[in-house]
């Protein structure tokens, strides 16, 4: 599976049309996009996205426990949605994510940093943890 790469750099996130991601990285990128998409912003897919960004920006993540709980919900929703969108060709692909974890690294008033951890269908793990900073004052 191939896709155009997105460089996640907070407010400087951009589509890098000169680079591509493949297989595992492409699937992980798809999941990341879903996590960061606000639930309800897509008029054609009501179940797309998560409420994580709204909760972070809305100031409801008042503790590490609450933040971790929100991350867990986000990864669960994302996994369900992305697997639902898989085509028949990819349902048996080895790079398909079977387990997705988002761990809270740090939480402050203006910034929440997390790490994404994935387990794939071929039972390999994503050893290169993907830092995902969420700046609560405007991502």
């Amino acid at each position, binding site marked *: 599976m191939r896709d155009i790469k997105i460089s996640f750099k907070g407010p400087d996130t951009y*589509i890098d049309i000169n680079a591509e991601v493949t297989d595992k990285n492409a699937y992980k990128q798809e999941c990341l996009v879903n996590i960061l998409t606000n639930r309800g912003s897509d008029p*054609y897919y009501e179940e797309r996205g998560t409420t994580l960004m709204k909760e972070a920006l809305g100031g409801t993540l008042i503790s590490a426990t609450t933040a971790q709980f929100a991350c867990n919900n986000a990864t669960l929703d994302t996994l369900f949605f992305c697997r639902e969108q898989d085509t028949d060709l990819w349902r048996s692909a080895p790079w398909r994510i079977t387990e997705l974890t988002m761990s809270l690294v740090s939480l402050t008033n203006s910034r929440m940093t997390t790490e994404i951890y994935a387990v794939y269908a071929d039972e390999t793990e994503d050893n290169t943890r993907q830092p995902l900073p969420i700046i609560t004052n405007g991502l």
Partner: protein
Amino acid sequence: MLMKLRITHVNPYLSSRMDFELFNNYIPGVDDLDPADVRDCRTRLVAYFQTIDPDINTTVNATVGDCVVTPEAIVITALETATGDLLSDLNLSNIAQGIIKNCTFVANYLLTFSTDSSWYLKSSGIIRMVFSVDKNYVLDRSTQFTLNDTIFTIYLPEDGSFYIRPAGTDRVAGTNGITLIDDGSGGYFADVPVVGSASVEVLANDTAAMNFLPDNLVSAMALFDFDPGTQENTLPELAQRTPLTIYSPSSSSRKGIIRFTEISCPFVKSVSATIRGDKEMIRDVVNPYGMGAGYMDVFALSKMYAFTEEQVIRLNYVDADDTFTGRFYYTGQPYFILELMVGSVPVGRDGCTIYSQSSDIVKAYRAQAAYSPFEELTIVIPNTTQGGTSIYPVRTDTDGTKYIQLSINYLTDPMLPEVSNILLAGDDEPQNMNLMVKGFIPIIIESFVVQYIKEPGVIPDLVTAQEQILNYLSTCTAPDIFSSAEINTIVKQAGGRVVTNVAVAAHVQWSIADRFGDKESYVEALTEPVITTIEQLNVTYPETGYDITTLAAIGFRNRRYVVVEGAIKFEEQKFGHLATT
């Protein structure tokens, strides 16, 4: 996070091509699209893309999926919606139901069938011209009648002028014209069919001014309220008429002649046709050639079907059989006699005998001529005396001929002769086909008693129900058949709960006459079938073949119903008391 593509360059060639009716008037806004349609389109697009390159991630949340596939799905869905709407506007059936997306496009589209809002039904009617002298009159084609500041011209299916011929003479085939009728009071009248602009109100007895006054003209007045026609057609009405311009109206088929009649005679309310093989077609079975000669009977009912005519006819005394006998020259074929009077002396229907003869026994014989222009009627009233003197006011001519003046009130369809003239006009008369125009055979309903249970607490509106039942029965002709469910519906709408029974007494009136032939040689008209139940109103008689003596046959295609005044009654049943008859 839905990535949005920003278009920074517009191809000027494309932008000029985009000024197209479809885009301007049919493409829906993005917000008007059904999300389910977009999802469905996207799924189809993904399947399509995967046949090109199955490796590219086209799913939701993928860069290509969100930036290319989803926007394409939105545009294609909009195009599909626009195409569907355009196809709907090309569908005459949808337009006729009022399902129209773009009125401008539909109006122009219907123009391609020569159907536009100016194709309206003209106002039509009859002007009765009364003359003081019985002789020939010629009305030029440019003759105009002015009623209510509107000009009406004579309806002329044939070439040439309109000829008004002396009383008692026959119509000359291939010419426009009519024969004068003696009104019994020294005058002679002729009914002239006219047409004019639509939506004009002309009432019965309105006086007509003429651009040219013929000699001896006493009066020219509208015989009845004119049919105003229709001035403007809505798009759905135009769409309903459009198939008439597509299907070739002709005399070569049942549907063709029906279409032709509807187009040529807009004053017709209903029309039916019988052809070889139909139960009701007798002429094609019994003909002097002994083989099928392309016979077709056209049965028509105009919007003036319930017109009441009053005529005075002269019956001369015949010493040999002590009767008063005379030819009944009618204006339009009578189908029900209301009253017969000689002066102030009522005659009653039983007090006279009417004979029917055909003026063309090859074309239509005996019952086949009934209700057609070929039926010639003769009325015979036996002289009844009291104390040696006739009960009737007998008059004596200057030459000593004794006679009485019979006043006859009857129901007729005055536009029916015009249907015959138009269908048999020179340029339109079908070749190699024996075509005849007749009125429907009436089933006379003497009694129609509706037994019902009313809705508790409701006062049923029986007056309206009576009018609706009368209208339903009077206009129920082919392709419709009588249905008792319609009576149920009418009674329910009027406040009744359920109709328990309808008691009917009716009979088929094969002809207005009692006998076919003349006084010396005749056969009696059939008295059967007698109708006593509501189901029998959909009568077919005989079940097989036809009556070989009178050549009578009736079926779905040639019957109609005539309700005698006062026949429709209602009887309320108390709940639990069901009628047994």
